[in-house]
């Protein structure tokens, strides 16, 4: 399952990131494998979205969320 297919309010665990550039960016912001992620909001037209990692809020576009494999 990827993050883009989650519903608002879902709490998931990040398992894998499919894109290296994205990995570097997310890692440097403290969003690493094994981290609990909450999908907070999705804007109209399906993107961008806001995720919560610990106490930080981070925005993402859909194609990046699709590259983030998560499990419940």
């Amino acid at each position, binding site marked *: 399952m990827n993050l883009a297919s989650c519903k608002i309010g879902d709490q998931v665990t990040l398992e894998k990131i499919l894109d290296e*550039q994205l990995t570097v960016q997310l890692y*440097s912001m*403290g969003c690493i494998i094994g981290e609990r992620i909450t999908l907070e909001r999705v804007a*109209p037209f399906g993107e961008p979205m806001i995720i919560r990692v610990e106490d930080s*809020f981070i*925005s*993402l576009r859909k194609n990046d969320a699709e590259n983030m494999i998560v499990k419940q």
Partner: protein
Amino acid sequence: MLSNKQLETVSEAPQIKKSSGKRLLLVGNPNSGKSTLFNALTGLNQRIGNFPGVTVEKKTGQLKLGQEKLEVVDLPGTYSLVPRSEDEKVTYEYLIDQNRNDKEEIVVIIADASSLKRNLLLVTQMIDLEYPTILVLNMMDIVERNKQKIDIAGLERELGVPVIPMNARLGKGVSKLKTRIETFDYIPAPKVIERHEEKNQLKNTVDRFKRIKEILAKTYHADGPAKTAESTRKIDKIFTHSVWGFVIFLFILFLIFQAIFSWSTYPMDWIENGFLVFGNWLGGALPEGILNDLLVEGVLAGLGGIVIFIPQIALLFMFIAILEDTGYLARVSYLTDTVLKRFGLNGRSIIPLLGGAACAVPAIMSARTISNKKERLLTIFVTPLISCSARIPVYTLLIALVIPAEKQLLGFNLQGIVMMALYLLGFVAALGTAMLLKYWVKTEERSHFIMELPIYRMPRWKNVGMTIYNKVKVFLFEAGKIIIAVSIVLWVLSSYGPGNKMEAIEQKYEQIEQDPSQELSLTQDQIASEKLEASYAGHIGKFIEPAIRPLGFDWKIGISIITSFAAREVFVGTMATLYSVGDEENTTSIKEKMARATHPSTGEKVYTKATGYSLLIFYAFALQCMATVAIVVKETGGWKWPILQLVYMGALAYFASLLVFQVFS
């Protein structure tokens, strides 16, 4: 830009230290409070705002510690030592610059203690690269509010560097930091992790977070999720709501608009009258002569034209400062990303675009935070189309001139509608231009919108006040300097002429006056305007008049367009000077003088509705700003884009004005 492979393979800290003084480098994650601390240390007033990417260039200041003077360097925030965008690159390149070894350096890392884990990544990277480090744990007030507990001594022990708790907003902990700097003696800390060059570099980051978690397990404790994050979440339920979020945003824009263009009229009237009274008093009090004329007709007329706009400038910057300080701007980025993406821009572009309503120069610099090169270039290219504060005086004057105040359209005040239409026009032109460029500029680079949304904070009124004060000061003195210089040059150019034409006119009128057979219908105004036409300024204006005639402009407007290249607000000063020269009783405002102006050949009014609208459109679109051209040269690294921008916006202005003039006349 570095490839991802280079994560953590940055060369180590510069080694040689000659001791000719000390330098403090303020480094840390975006929005952690570096500039706030910088201001507290140096007494300067660097821009502060509650969103990541406020500081986009290196700033230097000075700190006095006893006898010693230390250099303090504020750097753009960065999440790690892999730069993602131009602003992070500034920090990265400064840190690895091996040539800078003139002073002993201490790196003061400012970490947001309320999200310690993420902030410690950069801290541990810096420690492992053997930079002499002091760790500042900022935002301790928020840590307290969240009931998070941090064992400072434990952290010091685990990391092997001095740790100082702080609240940079209130200046708490600053004196402790100063003391620590005075006694600082670098002892290399043990490596936080063993780096493995051969391993996938991302693994090092994973190892690092593993170690950070171990450290935090011993030194940090929190009861459940942070309170500030919870309240931010609640506020965001409204502010980032799919419907209400946009409604609120439009309402805020409307409110700002109302304040600037409606509430401010009262103080503006007072200032205008004050200047008239003062000018007349000065004209009477000083001895007659050239100096009197220069001061009253040249300088004072030019300055008075600009001082009345202070209330509008102050209000504009007040609102911008409040928006910046609360954290709301990041939400506007979130709300607008989808729309802007379709135009080849990015949600982050909204910060330069909104900033462009104040001034395009810092706005264009703030586009550094956009990591995608194409999106950044497009943002830089279209930002000057947004109506900036320098257009406010031009718009206000011209609208008042050609649209009667009482006129209504569909129950709304027409002046207000036209003003709003000009702003919308600028915005629409910006988006349209981006759309065109989107197909023209090619890139392989992927585009992201990965941005941290900071917690909401109350604006600090002192900061808002300082911003207003500084911006008004810059507006007055920077614009004032140019206006005084232009006014003086212009006054000379329009008071003297080539050859002896000016004298010839004077003689002609003297003869007429003495000749009793002639009717004395010639007014002072006519003499003055004939002399003005014979002056140097008149000659220059007449030379360009044919080119702008089709737009409905006369030669005086032509001169204003030329002088406006120094800065747009010079338009008002130029008009003031051109219409004041030779005006014996300086009793009317520029607006009234311009309203009375007629074409000498036909006797028709100069400022008709058609000319007024045409000129408004011209100022909305033309890139008449040297400072903008200069910053675009700097930011794009060459002349190609600024020249393209100049030509494009010039052509847009010319043809749009032509169209408008033809339609309305």
